[in-house]
């Protein structure tokens, strides 16, 4: 019980504080840099609409590229959607978030969540195998890539253990699961997981720049 209290008490509070401070620090650290002025005469497109368009459309792969990119696209979508579905639609998670924020919404049944967790687990293992075997990915990968993968898959594994009541006692497993989340929160601001935020500004900037030039923002 002490471990569980620690996990959902001070450990969670500190992790959340570092999570929020770290994210703010990193976003502000980029935002305070010089914003380049664009002096060329734009074409007719609206850069703001272009930014929004690319934010949405870049998630939709070009069919011309799909023969080469389908594996990454399918596995990437699967584990992202699976992870967020499990995180946001598992009833105990919703109750936990409600206790923290007061917000609540309907969830999915445990059976569906269990299935989604297994699918997510499968996709995450698949992307790791690709990272370890594809020459380009092996070359590009660094500690951040593997650690972020571990931080993403471990809550899925410990969550499955908690719901399956496998191994240690329920409370101990739950404590380990929440500690997992605490670690994920701690790691997040310093890692590539920050792409959850940067993806929007990055796509937006390119979408606006492309639209100025008359290049389709997609």
């Amino acid at each position, binding site marked *: 019980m002490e471990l569980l209290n620690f996990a959902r008490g001070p450990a969670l509070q500190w992790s959340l504080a570092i999570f929020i401070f770290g994210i703010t620090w990193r976003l502000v650290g980029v935002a305070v840099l010089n914003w380049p002025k*664009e002096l060329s005469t734009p074409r007719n497109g609206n850069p703001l609409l272009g930014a929004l368009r690319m934010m949405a459309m870049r998630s939709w792969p070009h069919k011309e590229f799909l023969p080469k990119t389908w594996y*990454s696209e399918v596995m990437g979508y699967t584990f992202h959607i699976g992870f967020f579905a499990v995180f946001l639609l598992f009833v105990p998670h919703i109750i936990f978030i409600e206790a923290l924020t007061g917000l609540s919404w309907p969830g999915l049944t445990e059976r569906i969540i269990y299935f989604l967790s297994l699918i997510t687990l499968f996709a995450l293992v698949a992307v790791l195998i690709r990272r370890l075997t594809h020459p380009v990915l092996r070359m590009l990968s660094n500690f951040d890539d593997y650690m972020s993968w571990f931080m993403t898959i471990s809550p899925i594994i410990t969550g499955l253990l908690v719901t399956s009541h496998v191994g240690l006692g329920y409370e101990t497993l739950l404590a380990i699961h929440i500690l997992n989340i605490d670690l994920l929160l701690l790691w997040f601001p310093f890692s590539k997981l920050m792409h959850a935020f940067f993806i929007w500004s990055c796509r937006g900037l390119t979408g606006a720049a492309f639209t100025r030039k008359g*290049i389709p923002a997609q």
Partner: protein
Amino acid sequence: MSAAITFKPARKPAFRADKQTHLSDQERVDAAITQFLKDTDFVTATYMESCIHCGLCAEVCHFYEQTGDPQYTPIWKLEPFKQVYKREAGPFSFIYKALNLKRKLSSDELAQWQHLLYDSCTVCGRCSMVCPMGIDIATLISKARHGMFQAGLVPEDLWQMAKRAQDEGSPLGVTPEMLKATIQGVEKEYGLNIPLDRDEAEVLLSLSSIDIINYPHALSDIAKVMNQLGYTWTLRSDGYEASNYGLLTDSEAWQKATSQKLINAAIACKATTVVIPECGHGYNAFRWQAANLHGQALPFRILHITELMAEGIRTGKLRVNPVNESVTFHDPCQSARRGGATEAPRTVLAALGVELHEMPTAGDLNWCCGGGGGVMHIQRADELRYQAFEIKMQQVEQSGAEKLYTSCSDCRKNFDDCAEHFDWDKQPNSLLQLVAENLVEA
């Protein structure tokens, strides 16, 4: 313990770099770092922070596609720049530096990346179209090249051409005197009037040295089109060069100097439009970058000759006879994907009534011919360039068209060279020439 077994593939290419200036190795590193940091703004930093190492950019790059060599992964070409950003400028740079999580850039590392940043990148921007994060990788490549130029680490043959352009006003030695002689020759041969050095004109026309030297027909073609459009126009001996080798070496100072001559000439003759000839990188350099280097918005509009022809067709000023040909069109990366002028050539081709057979991936997602970004001028990169070109050959063949057209003299020169290398029977033709030869007589 065996040193032969490593977890990761060799990260550094075996390569001997060309060097300019008499800087010491440390001075080169310092110069590159200074320039990288100068180029680090909000946009660059956002891009640097966003990469998730997914490797998709490799899958659409012609150099990786053809070699399977991971070092040609576009984002990997930025590794020295990323290293400096993370260690010196990023929000957590103090952590990276204190714990040496990103090592200090070395002169060897920088020199070895010359091959990746110049020989094996045409800055075609196809990678920028696939990145799921939306990183405009091609823009970062240009910025990384800025650092390489400052460090005196540019491929020598490309640097020599850019230096000549800086010193003589043309990478191929087209001096004002040579321009005048060429104009006189074309006027005599074709019975055309080609105005030079008018004090006032609606349109200032620019030329590419590659056209003047390799495709002299282009001057008569452009004159015929300009005459039918009915604008008052002129060439100016104080500003005529559209090709910009400052851009190709990524020297901001040299790029600006080339652009500035055209800007000054346009202002001097009170032009309201500056027309760039069939030169992809020249268009990108002037249309999208000249104002930024000049420091203020330009008092005239800038059009690629294809855009001018498309505009003339839309307004009825330019009338063409139908052409019964089966054609495909190669989109020059710098005017199409990077410049936004993808529709204009198709407007022109539609007006000509040709039977257009698009390549399997055309328009903004087309495959580069492999010669852009200065690669065509780096002799040691020839074999790599030919490998990249094989994709283009297949694409042209798959289109089933009988004739091939494009609107970039750099692309044409690369097609010519590669066609000779492969003994390929397709010749790249000029869209401008097709229009000029099929104008409706007034």
